[in-house]
């Protein structure tokens, strides 16, 4: 899993990042969320961000920063944001500085993460955990991904896919800790 953390960025793209690999206890949370973008060129709209097709992309068409808004129906615990961007294909359209903000709505978004990508080619993983080991996830109604600048100072940006991951449901409700061994998991539910 490539880490893009604060400071000096390596959108670190080894061959492995051509495939999306995510931990088992995470699941994609944004299927039922409301997605919107600040601007787009006709034909390259927000749908292209979610169509599981790496050939289609969203192209913005306005002033920077270009923004993708994701609004959930209830507060969700999010841990990971994954973007697919490709310098080789998109060159000056490739995002370079990205800021992730979270909050209850448009009025109180607060930046929780900022990354800078350097010539990324593939899936870029942006973890949302804070430095505090207790905060592995962010519990929020809304997430906003801001593209602050592009490579080679391009004006508009291309993003091909975005996925947002959060915690799975605990298979056993009201348990302080989850089970890890088969002996307990086998007996943990009635199916």
């Amino acid at each position, binding site marked *: 899993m490539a880490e893009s953390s604060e400071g000096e960025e390596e959108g670190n793209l080894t061959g492995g990042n051509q495939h999306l690999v995510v931990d088992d206890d995470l699941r994609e949370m944004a299927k039922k969320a409301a997605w919107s973008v600040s601007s787009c060129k006709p034909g390259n709209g927000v749908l292209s961000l979610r169509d599981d097709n790496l050939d289609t992309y969203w192209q913005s068409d306005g002033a920077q920063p270009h923004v993708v808004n994701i609004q959930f129906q209830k507060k969700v615990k999010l841990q990971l944001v994954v973007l697919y961007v490709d310098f080789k294909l998109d060159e000056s359209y490739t995002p370079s500085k990205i800021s992730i903000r979270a909050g209850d709505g448009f009025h109180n978004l607060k930046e929780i993460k900022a990354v800078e990508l350097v010539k990324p080619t593939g899936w870029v993983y942006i973890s949302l955990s804070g430095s505090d*080991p*207790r905060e*592995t996830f962010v519990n929020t109604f809304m997430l906003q991904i801001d593209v602050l600048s592009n490579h080679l100072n391009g004006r508009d940006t291309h993003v091909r896919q975005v996925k947002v991951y959060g915690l799975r449901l605990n298979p056993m409700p009201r348990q302080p*800790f989850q089970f*890890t*061994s088969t002996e307990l998991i086998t*007996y*943990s539910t*009635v*199916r």
Partner: protein
Amino acid sequence: MYRNAIFMCERLCAEFPSETNLQLLASCYLQNNQSHCAYYILKGTHMAQCRYLFALSCFQMDLLNEAEAALRPPNESSAEVPNGAAGHYLLGLIYRYTDRRQNAIHHFNQALSMDPLLWAAYEELCILGAAEEATSVFSEGASLCIEKQYMHDELSSKSSQASSDDHIVVPNRSLGVEDVSPRQLKDMHGYDVRDISRNYHGAASNQPLNGGPATFSFYNTPSPMATQSQLSGVAPPPICRNAQLNGPNLRAFGADSSPRSVVNSAVPGPRRKFVDEGKLRKVSERLFSDSRQRRSMRLGGESLVNTNSSASVASGNGTNHSSKYLGGPKSSSVVSRSVTIRKGQSWASENSDEGAHYDIYDDSRLDITTSSSSPRGDARSLEQEGAARPSGPVVVSGSRVAAGASEILGLLMILGEGYRLSCLYRCQDALDTYIKLPKKHYNTGWVLSQVGKAYFEMVDYMEADSAFSLARLASPYSLEGMDIHSTVLYHLKEDMKLSYLAQELISTDRLAPQSWCAMGNCYSLQKDHETALKNFQRAVQLNSRFAYAHTLCGHEYVALEDFENGIKSYRSALQIDSRHYNAWHGLGMVYLRQEKFEFSEHHFRLAFQINPRSSVIMSYLGTALHTLKKNKEALEMMERAILADKKNPLPLYQKANILVSVENFEGALAVLEELKEFAPRESSIYALMGRIYKRCNMYDKAMLHFGLALDLKPSATDVAVIKAAIEKLHVPDELEDEDAL
């Protein structure tokens, strides 16, 4: 072959429109799985058998109201349900699916009393939870009942033989008699096409065919060999079955007198043909002298010319012998089917015997009422004593009937008792009962999968797995119970075996809901809940009355946090089968998550009442009680769960939880130490112990245990929680905000 039959029937109906012909056409359509065609043709018919077929097609098209109205017309409350036991069975199913449990039970019981070998009715009673003990159902009384029916058939066939046009209304017999022609449809597979067309030609030009739906009638359809015997022994193809209850039949019959002559000429043809092909015929030829044979055929021919209906009735005799009293349920029941064929073979020879005998007696108006028991095998003496009624063969065969019947009933008794007990979730008793079966029956797919199911209900997954594997070996084609097998593998987390099973099942039968359930379980095990849900939805589409598919859909919805749809799915499962404890449990879980504790406790309790053996349900009930702050009861429930199943560590863990919340730390630690024996590498045990030590202010031990817990690779959230706990080790608990406990 059905296409041919349908085509011919349509010509017949065009030529002689009448209800009986329509009935035949409808039965052809039903055999060919075109119930909508049958529905349209039979709309508005009045004959009993037609109404039955109409109800059946409505049932298959899911139009339960119309089906019910057909079987039980609302303005005639005292009307007899058509088609005897099968009719009652169908009516019972309709009531079951429209939620009228008492009526359903009543009708299933009726069906069983009319035909004690209708296993499917007993099964349904077990599922509804209202079955009587198998010993009382499949008892001596039942055996006598079967015997009586058999005898009755004989008598009635004699009487209608004696009186030419006067059809004696005998429900049993007519039902038995109807089997033949549609049965021929089925059994004709091996025959020459010409035969069939000739057969049909004979049929078409002959009186309307009353062959009711073979598979749906009271008696199971006669085995092919027996069919052979009738055909050979009897003049026209035994299609001129007019022993229906209704007048219109007779009239139709009478009206078609003209074509009969055509039939006569057609007769020798098929008969000869069948003589060639009937293996049984050869057997019977060996039994009889040739002269007798020819004589019987000749007599049969004569009788045809002389007596119109009696000839048909004579054929009816043959039919009756062959129509085994092994009235089986729908042909899907493997056990009874195999038994039928077995008996059929042993009986066939005797039947041809009797068929021949009865032909001889066609001419002579015999007095039916004699009950002399002249010895059977002595054909010559029978010939001489023209007046002697062939009650000899009847009586002898009667006792053999009794013997056969009681043997079958003995078998059914064990199977029935086992099934009833497993539906009541008295799993250990059910297992003990199944053990009593003879080896050859125990090692069949059905029984082994029932055994597997019983182990599953007792939460003994290893045994269940081995039983199911044996079942797969015994009948690799059978999908019965394989959905439960896939769930067992899911619980055991055997993803290789599970995916193998799923692949096999899909390749065996793509249209069975069980295969898709297995596939869905496979994906669910890999946490791909969306695909799993899709698979389960497919299973539901394939058979919307398969309760378990709905329950599994519910589980997947809940895993995707879509509680609304989850609840809906569980409710649909419960609508189909209100004793499906998995669905009750699922609902309880949903309410637990939604923190509606009262509801959750209620649902868990319902699940527990249905299946009191499952220690997992018990421990969840305990948890629910704990959330309601009824800690004492919760602990009791946990104790019960622990006792119920020594191998299940879950109740121990839950018990520890409860003890922690009531601040009984020593007790909790003791339990957790015990639990360590069960699952030495379980991180949550150490985490909980760490927490307890922290509460007791034993920081070193707490630190040690948290460290151990972290080493054992807990899930990501737990890592965070534990790390946080370590950091805040010296901070009193009240200042932390704990979110899950």
